[in-house]
């Protein structure tokens, strides 16, 4: 029986069967042969593609016509390569990676969102293999995707395809990042303009200084790049006009997205410059503040090596004079300071995470147990509710539930 409850209008029989007449589906009465109803002779295209019994992935169509998402993905890869103006060779490499990854069992059944992100990750890996400087943040912006998702898919892809893609070093990123800043005379006032080349050169030296002073390792690259470029711009022509510019205003002028972290990096970098600036002999020990240091950046950077040497020796002298005095204090204070200070602390520059170390929760001393001790009943009973407690709990729950119902 094809359908329940259907009655033949001619003879009244309930025996209706599915009997197709060539390609036309028909419902026919088994007793008198009357056609009860019939379907359409032709089918629409969507019915043909979606109404099939066999899944696309199990049919032979897979070999004849590549998956639509694969084609879309390849188009996306090509589009990204064109936007980034990559070479033809890189475009081909990225496409190859994408095809391989897409068809790999690890990726063939992931969500569409991940497949979209996969396209960007292939481009990223290709750029890294060819030493083309690009930040993951750029891919994030282009794909408008979550950075975490990109990270997950990227690492999975690199592992699956066994690609070796060394991460871009920050100095290489600097030049591409610098070009985004619109500071040429046609964009801004002449007094505020700066050529990309000069800016990059100065910012590179500042960046290198920052890296040496542990401001770069382990941190997001873009904010420190922004900070370096900002300070480079200020120090190349330290006029009052430029010095009055805050980082936010500078980013607005240069038509670059501002970040909340970059101002902190500016402060840190200025601190480093102050430490070196302090050693300039013609200052004769005058204090160098973050406000006054910008004018001296030129001198500081030109005589960096000497200043560094001097700063190190004066730092050592300061430590040496400190330690005989604090030696006795240390002994008393030892039990409050269970940890030996990091050797980074004794140097002139140390990673900020060391200098501003989080105060550790007091470690509970590890009790030595064998694992086979006797477990006292009273201890276990303390974890079990008394019958009264259970009654109270149930009543309270019912009371809550009924008051919720009333609401």
């Amino acid at each position: 029986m094809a359908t329940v409850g259907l009655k033949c209008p001619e003879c009244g029989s309930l025996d209706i069967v599915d009997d197709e007449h060539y390609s036309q589906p028909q419902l026919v009465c088994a007793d008198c042969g009357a056609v009860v109803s019939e379907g359409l002779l032709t089918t629409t295209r969507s019915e043909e593609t979606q109404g099939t019994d066999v899944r696309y992935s199990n049919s032979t169509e897979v070999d004849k016509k590549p998956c639509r998402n694969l084609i879309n993905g390849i188009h996306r890869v090509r589009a990204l390569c064109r936007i980034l103006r990559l070479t033809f060779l890189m475009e081909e490499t990225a496409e190859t990676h994408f095809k391989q990854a897409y068809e790999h069992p690890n990726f063939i059944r992931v969500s569409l969102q991940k497949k979209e992100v996969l396209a960007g990750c292939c481009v990223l890996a290709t750029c890294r293999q060819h030493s083309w400087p690009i930040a993951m943040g750029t891919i994030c912006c282009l794909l408008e995707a979550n950075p975490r998702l990109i990270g997950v898919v990227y690492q999975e892809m690199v592992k699956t395809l066994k690609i070796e893609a060394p991460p871009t070093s920050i100095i290489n990123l600097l030049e591409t990042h610098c070009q985004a800043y619109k500071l040429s005379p046609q964009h801004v006032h002449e007094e505020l303009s700066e050529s990309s080349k000069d800016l990059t050169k100065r910012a590179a030296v500042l960046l290198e200084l920052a890296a040496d002073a542990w401001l770069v390792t382990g941190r997001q690259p873009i904010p420190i790049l922004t900070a370096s470029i900002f300070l480079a711009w200020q120090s190349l022509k330290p006029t009052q006009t430029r010095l009055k510019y805050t980082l936010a205003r500078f980013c607005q002028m240069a038509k670059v997205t501002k970040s909340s972290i970059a101002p902190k990096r500016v402060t840190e970098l200025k601190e480093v410059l102050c430490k070196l600036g302090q050693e300039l002999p013609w200052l004769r020990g005058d204090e160098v503040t973050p406000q006054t240091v910008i004018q001296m950046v030129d001198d500081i950077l030109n005589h960096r090596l000497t200043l560094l040497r001097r700063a190190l020796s004066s730092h050592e002298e300061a430590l040496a004079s400190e330690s005989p005095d604090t030696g006795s204090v240390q002994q008393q204070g030892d039990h409050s300071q269970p940890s030996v200070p990091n050797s980074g602390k004794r140097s002139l520059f140390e990673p900020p995470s060391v200098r501003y170390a989080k105060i550790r929760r007091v470690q509970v001393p590890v009790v030595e147990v064998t694992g086979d001790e006797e477990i006292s009943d009273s201890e276990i009973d303390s974890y079990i509710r008394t019958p009264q407690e259970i009654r109270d709990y149930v009543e309270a729950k019912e009371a809550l539930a009924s008051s919720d119902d009333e609401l």
Partner: protein
Amino acid sequence: DMEQNNSLPPFQGLASPQGAMTPGMPIFSPMMPYGSGLTPQPVTNTNSLSLLEEQQRQQQQQQQASAQQAGVPGGLGQTPQLYHSQTVTTTTLPGNTPLYTATPLTPMTPITPATPASESSGIVPQLQNIVSTVNLGCKLDLKTIALRARNAEYNPKRFAAVIMRIREPRTTALIFSSGKMVCTGAKSEEQSRLAARKYARVVQKLGFPAKFLDFKIQNMVGSCDVKFPIRLEGLVLTHQQFSSYEPELFPGLIYRMIKPRIVLLIFVSGKVVLTGAKVRGEIYEAFENIYPILKGFRKTT
């Protein structure tokens, strides 16, 4: 019964091969694809900071050697940046055509004085978390457990298990209706076992015929501090096949050691987290493997 692995002393006995020792390479990882580890690796980034640090380190070595002969006071050893900086300011900046430049430079192994084979780090990683599982051997009614136990929470819409906590050892357990249980938060294998037994006793007292079958430690996490800052950018270049360092995603370097099979999180401050161990010895072994490598990236400014 539990595996009796908790009495191993910190890993010291595995001496590295005498003679040509390259501290840059993980000593106990024979599965490295580069053979003996002395194969020069092609370098694609000619202008990276860490690469120049490599050159500078070599220069520093040579300088130190000659300085010692000349009797110059040890100032040179403390200002490595002098040579480093000089090379940077005279090289050209990255050009507009970043082509694939493969210039095999000198071997990528950091050329620092080799540490004597028998010297151990003297630092012992502290265990921070142990995850273990046990089978209580009977089906459980989670609603009853949640109702009758003081220290239990059960929210079936969120998670299909009862979350129970005890004070000593301070741990948390996930108890499933199948009778399987996961115990987390203990600081040693014995503590984990004691805690798991206590949870089983609580379930017994609540009226279920709980047993204590197939107790197994599934994961151990340890941490320690090498007490010097580390150049992660350099480490990821020389140990590319094991490391993943993406500052845009995570501030630490993820090092996947092959032997033993441990994942290490290495941070710029010198703190190291080791995880993935089934026995305590793997954590100690992994740390003894990584310590000489990290020392090679020790930087004094």
